[in-house]
């Protein structure tokens, strides 16, 4: 019986003896594995990007929007109100007694407005809201302060600028303490938002925030004074999102005096749903790319089988001699399987090296992030070894079955 070490040694000797052929064998697997690592990395990278973008909108977020998601139902409204959501709804939702799983509520009105300061003009979304908005959206103030409850109560003409608005209106200056003109009213700038980059859909640095009451009276004219465009809710935790959803739904149905839930005149969308929609796209892409990489691995595996078969034919005399000297069919099988396994393993390791190298270069060329994951790398090496082994079975069993006399007659 030949020990594992002996088998390994014999296999390494054989691989080293036929160096260029071994290299060619390895090449197929190497390319396949590198392709898998890059595609999986690209997929995970873009998924991470989407996740980060969505969660930058705020964590454990639920968005209440006016209008039914389930068809037309009864047309509500009347009295010229554009929205079925009001400040009173927001106040009701903020009740810790009735909605214990909702930790923060921020009603929002939003409109694009022209604005100016000094000689500079700009146009950006103006958001009217309340103090909890900052926490719900996970934003930060880099200079000055955010709006206060007092600002909301007395509808003060104060504004907080996003970095891009600030750069347009006050290039190279600190905007805090200055005055801007929005839609004919002048606002004093009391704060500057820290940059948050772009989310999936909006540029979060190109906006101006004002107290919701100020916005309602000065900016979104024509609308009913108390209607809001959206109400942002923050659930206490990840686990209480669905409880928060239930509470908000019940409260709003009651406030709007709707008895059949299907006739609701509002829609509550949990953030996770946004995430799911956004990631499903990149998941499909990843799946497709991984499929292509898997096919290339399969081709690599067939390459291993091919070259191993050539190797068996070429080494018929060696196999015959080893058998004559006492190698059992199993010992021969094991030797060739070990060879195939080592070739696969070598291809896997070299492929990982190539894949890591490429994933360092690709982001520089295409600005697509590549996320290297340790499980994917380990998985790739294991798969490569497995492919070597699987596609080595046929050549190895052919070698093992060779009759010693036929093999010895080889030359």
């Amino acid at each position, binding site marked *: 019986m030949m020990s594992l070490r002996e088998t390994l040694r014999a296999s390494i000797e054989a691989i080293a003896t036929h160096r260029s052929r071994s290299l060619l064998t390895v090449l197929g697997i190497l390319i396949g594995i590198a392709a898998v690592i890059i595609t999986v990395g690209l997929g995970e990278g873009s998924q991470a990007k989407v996740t980060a973008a969505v969660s930058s909108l705020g964590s454990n977020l639920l968005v209440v929007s006016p209008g039914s998601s389930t068809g037309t139902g009864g047309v509500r409204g009347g009295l010229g109100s554009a929205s079925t959501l009001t400040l009173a709804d927001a106040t009701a939702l903020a009740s810790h007694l009735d909605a214990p799983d909702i930790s923060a509520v921020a009603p929002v009105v939003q409109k694009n407005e022209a604005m100016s300061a000094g000689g500079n003009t700009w146009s950006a979304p103006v958001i009217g809201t309340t103090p909890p908005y900052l926490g719900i959206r996970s934003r930060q103030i880099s200079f000055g302060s955010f709006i206060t409850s007092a600002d909301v109560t007395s509808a003060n003409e104060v504004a907080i600028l996003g970095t891009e608005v600030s750069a347009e209106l006050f290039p190279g200056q600190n905007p805090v303490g200055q005055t801007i003109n929005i839609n004919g009213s002048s606002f004093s700038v009391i704060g500057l938002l820290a940059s948050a980059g772009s989310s999936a859909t909006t540029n979060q640095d190109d906006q101006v925030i004002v107290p919701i009451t100020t916005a309602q009276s000065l900016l979104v004219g024509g609308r009913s004074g108390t209607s809001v465009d959206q109400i942002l809710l923050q659930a206490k935790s990840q686990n209480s999102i669905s409880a928060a959803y239930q509470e908000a739904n019940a409260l709003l149905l009651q406030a709007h005096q709707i008895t059949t839930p299907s006739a609701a005149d509002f829609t509550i969308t949990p953030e996770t749903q946004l995430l799911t929609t956004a990631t499903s796209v990149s998941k499909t892409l990843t799946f497709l790319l991984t499929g292509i990489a898997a096919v290339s691995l399969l081709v690599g595996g067939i390459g291993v089988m091919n070259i191993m078969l050539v190797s068996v034919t070429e080494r018929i005399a060696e196999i*015959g001699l080893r058998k004559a000297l006492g190698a059992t069919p199993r*010992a021969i099988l094991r030797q060739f399987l070990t060879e195939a396994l080592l070739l696969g393993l070598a291809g896997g390791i070299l492929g990982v090296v190539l894949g890591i190298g490429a994933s360092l270069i690709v982001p520089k060329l295409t600005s697509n992030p590549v996320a290297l994951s340790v499980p994917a790398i380990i998985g790739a090496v294991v798969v490569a070894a497995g492919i070597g082994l699987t596609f080595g079975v046929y050549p190895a069993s052919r070698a093992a079955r060779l009759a010693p006399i036929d093999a010895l007659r080889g030359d």
Partner: protein
Amino acid sequence: MSQDSPVEQGRDGRRTVPVIEISELRKTYGTGEAAVEAIRGLDLVVEEGEFLSVMAPSGSGKSTLMHIIGCLDTPTSGRYRLAGRDVSNLDEAELARIRNRYIGFVFQQFHLLRHLTAVSNVELPLVYAGLNPTDRRVRAIEALRRVGLADRMHHRPTQLSGGQQQRVAIARALVTDPTVILADEPTGNLDSASSEEVLGWFGEFHRAGRTVVLITHEPDVAKVASRVVRMRDGVVVGDGPPELIFVGTGTTFAGATLTEQPQDGSEPSGGSAGHR
């Protein structure tokens, strides 16, 4: 096991077990129309310590016999006992272990592995015997020393002459201390000087008490043995010491022990396949 002198009979008249005991051996290649009967009812007994040569013209079934004696192939019918053990119907794995333990092969084409050094080639049978690397090395070097090649142990086959390569192969055959050394045309690829040297080694092993079976078609080679068996068309046609087998010319035999293989005629399926 006594290796000092050739033993054909036990000291007190009790027979020792013969190393090779073959009776009514038949080997047919292929089936139906294409069947070739290479060995047709052959009997042969080789005692421990004998130096036997099997001599026959080309195509007489020498290699076929060697393959069966060496457990590289199994007979179609008949019985073969190696060192007292019936090996006619063993499977591949068992045959491999028998070869490893009992047989030392020397081939016409040397059959050394090109990518291994001389000493690694000699070690091969010990690898399959499961010996540890240190013991293997020690025994391989000792075997190479016995054929006078200890100074070439790290050379590869391509760096050695034909005669030296065959000596490495002989060392490989010796290294397991086999019951039989089996050589098929060992001088077939060598010049006359190397041939003589190689045959000299076999004579030496014989004197040291080993059993050697030498297969050849050349009378000059066959006669170095102490017993010559002549084969023709798959049967034994002469058996005796070289002095008797090679009376007169070297090519026609006039052996006293000439046998006519009477079984051949009595067996209905006998030579019929060949005479059809």
